[in-house]
């Protein structure tokens, strides 16, 4: 059975899981840090700036974390 959205997005659940450290990684590396201006910079990296900024924990965690039953 698919858990309800609120449960699936529960931060507490993530933080209590073995993936707690991954939450910090995603938050730090994908959402923080120096942002250099200029399309060339991030465009060449093949990492969509929009994805990085808006995807944040939800999209990134969905992609990285193993599926939950």
């Amino acid at each position, binding site marked *: 059975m698919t858990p309800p959205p*609120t449960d699936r997005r529960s*931060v507490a659940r993530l933080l209590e899981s073995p993936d707690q450290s991954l939450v910090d990684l995603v938050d730090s590396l994908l959402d*923080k840090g*120096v942002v250099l201006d200029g399309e060339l910079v991030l465009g*060449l990296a093949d990492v969509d700036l929009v994805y*990085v900024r808006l995807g944040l924990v939800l999209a990134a965690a969905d992609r990285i974390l193993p599926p939950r039953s």
Partner: protein
Amino acid sequence: MILYLYALADRVERLDGIAGVGDEPLVQIETANARLVAGWIAAPPAIDRATLEAQDRVIRALHDRASALLPMRFGTAVDGVEAAVRAVSIVARTLPERFELVRGREQMTVRVLRTAGAAGASGSLGSPGATGATGATGATGASYLRARASREVPPEIAPLVDGTRTIARATRVERGSSDLLATVYQLVERGRSAEYREQVERIAATLPHLRLRVSGPSPVFAFARD
């Protein structure tokens, strides 16, 4: 080949023994007001757990060797040294102040969670007197900025911010969603993280409706942007 950018530092003593996410040797590039630490790699790194962990290891190793280090956002790359210098030149004017803020310091992170028995999502927007979205829109200049900033600080976390004032050198708060009330990022002097944790534990004992999850110390990711 692309030049993959890891961090800006005031200076890094040595880079030996530190390999990049592609196991490449790191180089230092002299730019205006900063040294840029980078590595030549064949292709952009994938966004997966192993690569994130690899980049985290690189940044932590660099942080240990630099008194002031500003990590780059994951995935930042340019096509050569000239492009890197040009990109850094855009932010160069702000770098001395940013280095000064983080010099000799490390980041602690506190995630403030509502417990099951706590009231639902807070409908209040910031401290008493703070305007809501409509009010803030009507404000101008400094009053607008103050209103906007106050909305990011839920009143429930005031005891945490106040209680860590003597040890925290800078604080950034991001309002959360769902059961995450807010994330509090604070800078402390390097070596004082244990003392910080103890202080947060004491504060947590006085906040039965909240759960405080502390992580760190880490490089100063949340303070790297201007």
